[in-house]
């Protein structure tokens, strides 16, 4: 089956990103396809490469990046939600006159159309959040 995934909450405060990650990992292990993982609301904070969690804790952001590299996952951060919350790649930083960028490897920034498209293309769109 082809899954689309929506993550609506940020890392650590909320379990949604952890559950989504475990779901994606399990689905891939069973041979399913992950069409796209879309990060919205505070979920965009899963894409900041500047998190430094304690060493005895899981690294939520790096875990997504590593899984994306391993399985060629399409991790998409909503641009409108990202701009509100200070998430940007180098191109966005330049465009907005900011002196830094913080998007983690394996993530890309794009529009909400990517979420709708995932709903259209996937057999199931699974929402993780409150």
């Amino acid at each position, binding site marked *: 089956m082809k899954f689309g995934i929506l993550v*609506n909450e940020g890392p650590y405060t909320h379990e949604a990103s952890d559950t989504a990650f475990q779901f994606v990992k399990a689905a891939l292990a069973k041979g399913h396809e992950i069409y796209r993982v879309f990060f919205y609301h505070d979920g965009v904070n899963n894409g900041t490469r500047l998190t430094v969690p304690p060493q005895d804790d899981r690294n939520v952001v790096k875990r997504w990046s590593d899984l994306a590299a391993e399985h060629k996952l399409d991790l998409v951060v909503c641009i409108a939600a990202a701009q509100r919350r200070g998430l940007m790649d180098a191109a966005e930083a330049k465009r907005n006159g900011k002196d830094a960028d913080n998007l983690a490897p394996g993530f890309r920034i794009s529009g909400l*159309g990517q979420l*709708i498209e995932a709903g259209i293309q996937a057999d199931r769109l699974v*929402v993780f959040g409150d």
Partner: protein
Amino acid sequence: MTEGNAGVAKKFLYVNRRAPYGSIYALESLEVVLIGAAFEQDVSLAFLGDGVYQLTKGQDTKGLEVKNFSPTFRALEDYDVTKLYVEKEALEARGLRAADLVVPVEVVGAERMAEIMEAQDVILSF
């Protein structure tokens, strides 16, 4: 669905469960609806629980210093988004009637709402 069905409209339901202010979910849900309208899918909106407050008339957000986005619901018709379902029990529990809302809606009981959800292809819950 296969790639070959990409041109066929799917039934999208946006489920709004939260009050309009106090968190950003309601506003950002509406942003998805507006962007999604360009994809010419079969779109419906459902309002459950405190989500019914999103549609109430006379919202005044000046004291909160946030934008009152309730007028946007009146523009949905221009985007061909006309199916708005409001949970009857949620309205009644809050002492509201359909006449208190900024747009025409269909008030449905929880059982009918469950049937509406059952008929969807994609449910986005905010």
